[in-house]
């Protein structure tokens, strides 16, 4: 075998590297193209399943996932970079707002929640969409992980009205409120409870503006 | 009396047990039937024997000459006959033998002619040589030659006289100071004059008030600036470096002698021996030994060097229950492996040990790193770390933690709540490291010599090749004249050892070859190939002719080695490596005078 100089070796390795890169990158992009429709369909189905968990399927009849408004950064809901609010209507009448809210003070960081609230401030359902709470300890906020399968903890918010409970009592029992928590994992419960309360108050104060906004529009500053 | 005292870190206060023997005055021990005088003083220094079996010697006659830097002379402790010169166990924990001169005393105590030595009239070096030839070594235990100490350093400010005697049970220095304070002070003044110090400090532990009083009385009578200082009783205050620290505040690092720091320390016993040597011309023939322990008659005896210890035991009448005898104090001494070993210049005490006085240690438990040992260590070491690394044979780490600063005083093991024989681990690690150093030195020496030999063989081959090439060139030149150039050129190329393309090299090779050839004309050409194949044959057939044949080869080998072109660095490396080994060894072995 002949001895290569540095320059010749560089050219050789670089060209082989390029061939491999092009080959495998093309394979990746082809796969990406081939799978995109199926992935989007799956994601859509997944979102709808979540929506239907917190809002009964028959309660609305508008295309829920298309009827949303974009929110700008809203510290009140813990949304640093904005989020979406979906609007459920039945025959054009407002039924509920589905608000993405973030509880920043979870035991293991941020907890993302989807909260469905009707215009009177009554909670229709809450789900944790993303969290990293300690497995076996704080992850009971996800009903699939909750050991009390018959009566998941997070379902206690269903049907509770923010107006009736009052802001002072919208806390876990340990802090003097009305909501249960699990022993040893107060922080997770406290975070979810407080975030749900904030979402309810937000829905209560802003529901007119939110329902009136054009679908897909972006609300910069939500005002009264 | 107003001297400010300093303190050293650590130390312990064991029960001192001095009263057993301190009350009895020094008595001469009876002359033994045989004196066994070792020619070795310590692990490093051996004297050269200058007597023969059957020779008659006088008391004080020199029987061994000083050799080496650390050597001192050895003398006959009594007049009599040299019976034999043989290997005999020595006073060493190993119980190994060393060369000893065995003398049968005739009991007449005839002295060799001797007269006082005027050190003031002689120059310094000859006085030091005189002391060396009088066999003066440190009497504290390590037997370090006094002339070496006296010769080291200049501008010494303070002469420290060590009368601290901190080990429990030992009282020989105490008695010596009580009874011979004047001679000690006189010896100290001689030393003082020899090193040109500005003051003398005598350090005595405050549990020896009689000795302090006697020394003060003696000091008061002379003009030299002597101060007798009572130092707090705390083991190891009698360690040379600890005492210097206490008296002057100076700390002498490991491997250094006091001379570099303006202070020098001698044992009171040494001062006494110096007095005998200078004022009376008597070499060091005897020393005071404390016999104590589990004994009915503990006391102090003036014992001739070379007296077997077994001969001394009846003097103290050991009580029943005595199961072994310790040489030295209980903190640093060792159990005698053999009772026939002789008293040497460093032997200060023999303790009859019983289970009641020196019980078996409790079983060793795990180290809990409580740090007691570090608190007790007078060398400011971290004994538990040293233990950890010595135990796991991680010697590099142990040295990083200053293993060789350990003076083996035993304080750490004394206080250890887990009853770990810490000092044993350090001794093990130290000797192991020395052994490895020796092995490494030997290995690198062997490697160098092996490489040099290979180089030499290569060179010889090359020279042979060059010779052949030169011959070929000659032939070529001859042939060139006759006009056959092509074939010869090929022949030249066939010898790769001489690159004929470089004219200079060829010239050198030719020159070398010429020189070689002249020499080689008398040589048998085929010797290199000869030996392996035909050796046996030749040996059987014609020893005479064979040896003739080979003799020329051997001489050529021998002569080629030193004379010819210097090889790359190997020759120059060899002596250096040896020197380095010697100096590290020396540094490592320097012990401290202690009692």
């Amino acid at each position, binding site marked *: 075998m002949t001895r290569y100089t540095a320059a010749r070796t560089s050219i050789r390795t670089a060209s*082989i590297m390029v061939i491999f890169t092009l080959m495998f990158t093309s394979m990746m992009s082809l796969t990406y193209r081939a*799978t995109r429709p*199926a992935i989007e369909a799956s994601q859509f189905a997944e979102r709808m399943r979540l929506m239907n968990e917190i809002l009964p399927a028959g309660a609305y009849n508008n295309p829920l996932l298309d009827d949303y408004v974009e929110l700008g950064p809203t510290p009140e809901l813990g949304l640093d970079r904005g989020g979406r609010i979906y609007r459920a209507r039945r025959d054009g009448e407002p039924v509920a707002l589905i608000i993405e809210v973030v509880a920043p003070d979870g035991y293991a960081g941020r907890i993302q929640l989807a909260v469905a609230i009707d215009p009177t401030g009554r909670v229709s359902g809450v789900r944790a969409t993303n969290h990293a709470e300690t*497995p*076996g300890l704080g992850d009971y906020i996800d009903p699939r992980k909750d050991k009390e399968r018959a009566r998941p903890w997070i379902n206690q918010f269903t049907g509770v009205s923010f107006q009736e409970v009052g802001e002072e009592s919208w806390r876990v029992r340990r802090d003097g409120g009305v909501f249960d928590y699990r022993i040893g994992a107060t922080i997770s419960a406290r975070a979810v409870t407080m975030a749900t309360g904030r979402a309810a108050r937000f829905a209560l104060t802003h529901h007119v503006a939110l329902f009136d906004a054009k679908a897909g529009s972006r609300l910069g500053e939500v005002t009264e | 009396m107003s001297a400010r005292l300093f303190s050293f870190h650590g130390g312990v206060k064991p029960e001192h047990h001095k009263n057993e023997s301190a009350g009895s005055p020094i008595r001469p021990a009876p002359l033994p039937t045989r004196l066994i005088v070792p020619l070795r003083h310590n692990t490093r220094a051996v004297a050269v024997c200058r007597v023969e079996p059957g020779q008659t010697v006088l008391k004080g006659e020199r029987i061994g000459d000083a050799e080496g830097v650390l050597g001192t002379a050895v003398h006959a402790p009594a007049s009599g006959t040299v019976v034999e010169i043989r290997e005999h166990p020595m006073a060493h924990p190993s119980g190994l033998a060393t060369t000893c001169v065995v003398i049968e005393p005739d009991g007449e105590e005839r002295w060799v002619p001797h007269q006082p030595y005027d050190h003031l009239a002689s120059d310094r070096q000859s006085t030091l040589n005189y002391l060396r030839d009088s066999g003066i070594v440190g009497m504290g235990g390590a037997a370090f030659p006094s002339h070496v100490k006296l010769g080291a350093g200049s501008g010494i400010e303070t002469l420290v006289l060590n009368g601290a005697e901190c080990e429990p049970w030992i009282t020989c220095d105490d008695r010596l100071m009580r009874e011979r304070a004047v001679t000690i002070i006189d010896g100290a003044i001689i030393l003082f004059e020899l090193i040109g110090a500005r003051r003398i400090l005598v350090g005595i532990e405050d549990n020896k008030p009689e000795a302090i009083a006697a020394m003060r009385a003696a000091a008061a009578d002379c003009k030299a600036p002597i101060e007798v200082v009572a130092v707090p009783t705390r083991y190891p205050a009698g360690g040379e470096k600890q005492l210097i620290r206490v008296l002057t505040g100076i700390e002498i690092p490991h491997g250094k002698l006091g001379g570099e720091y303006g202070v020098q320390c001698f044992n009171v016993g040494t001062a006494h021996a110096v007095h005998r040597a200078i004022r009376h011309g008597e070499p060091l023939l005897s020393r005071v030994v404390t016999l104590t322990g589990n004994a009915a008659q503990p006391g102090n005896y003036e014992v001739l060097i070379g007296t077997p210890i077994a001969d001394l035991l009846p003097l103290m009448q050991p009580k029943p229950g005595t199961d072994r005898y310790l040489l030295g104090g209980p903190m640093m001494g060792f159990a005698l492996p053999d009772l026939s070993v002789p008293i040497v210049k460093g032997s200060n005490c023999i303790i009859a040990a019983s289970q009641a006085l020196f019980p078996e240690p409790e079983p060793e438990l795990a180290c809990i790193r409580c740090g007691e040992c570090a608190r007790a260590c007078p060398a400011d070491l971290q004994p538990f770390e040293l233990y950890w690394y010595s135990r796991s044979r991680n010697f590099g780490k142990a040295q990083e933690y200053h293993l060789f600063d350990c003076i083996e005083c035993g304080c750490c093991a004394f206080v250890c709540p887990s009853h770990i024989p810490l000092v044993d681990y350090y001794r093990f690690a130290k000797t192991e490291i020395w052994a490895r150093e020796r092995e490494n030195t030997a290995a690198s020496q062997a490697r160098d010599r092996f490489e040099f030999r290979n180089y030499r063989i290569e060179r010889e081959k090359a020279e042979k090749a060059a010779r052949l090439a030169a011959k070929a060139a000659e032939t070529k030149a001859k042939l060139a004249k006759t006009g056959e150039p092509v074939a010869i050129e090929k022949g030249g190329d066939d010898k790769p050892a001489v690159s004929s393309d470089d004219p200079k090299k060829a010239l050198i090779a030719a020159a070398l070859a010429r020189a070689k050839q002249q020499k080689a004309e008398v040589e048998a050409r085929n010797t290199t190939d000869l030996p392996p194949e035909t050796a046996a044959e030749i040996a059987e057939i014609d020893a005479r002719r064979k040896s003739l044949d080979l003799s020329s080869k051997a001489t050529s080998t021998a002569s080629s080695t030193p004379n010819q072109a210097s090889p790359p660095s190997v020759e120059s490396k060899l002596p250096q490596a040896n020197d380095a080994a010697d100096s590290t060894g020396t540094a490592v072995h320097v012990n401290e005078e202690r009692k």
Partner: protein
Amino acid sequence: MNMRSFRENAYNGLWKQNPGLVQLLGLCPILAISTNMVNAVSLGLATILVMAVANLAIASLRNFIPYEIRIPVFILVIASLVTIVDLSFNAWLHELYLVLGIFIPLIVTNCIVLARVEAYAAKNDPISSTIDGVMMGLGLVWVLAVLGGVRELIGGGTLFSGIDMIFPSLSPIQVFGDGYHDFLIAILPPGAFFALGCLIALFNWINMRAAARAARRPKPVTAVSDAEAASAG
């Protein structure tokens, strides 16, 4: 490809050179996802797929890859394959993807894939490389299954939790009943280290006993019979 080398591959992957217990490669995913058995096994299966395909691809292409750039090329191949697996799962096995979604990209960072590619596939023929990939993957799977099972059992008192997300007809087993106090530390990261440490200790103990027994027995045990014993157990 003969039976003998197949057995050797199997023995190496499942026991002797087990990636989880001996090579200790890919500790990050092993420790992170072994909180329960279902997650652990699922990721293990995805790893098998990636390892088999990656080994096959590299072994086929090995003669075209210069020594100097082998590592970037290997990583490129592995990363592409993992992306393809990830996308395919998302598109066509969406249920499984929901469980494994976040773990599949982790396979790229799993050193075991790169290690086998470098140590085996780059030097051997495609078929035995594929088998090596599968066997190493299976070795990882059983370790993951044991680890996940133990942690889940001690930490939560259940087994197969989350299986209903893959097979809706099945449900987790409550082993210790309701009164069990979850020993949370087993599920938390420290538990992963403890459990793996104990498993490795057990593994070494078994090996030492086997070695001791082999030493006592006059006839030495061959590697093949050991492999059988291992795969049977």
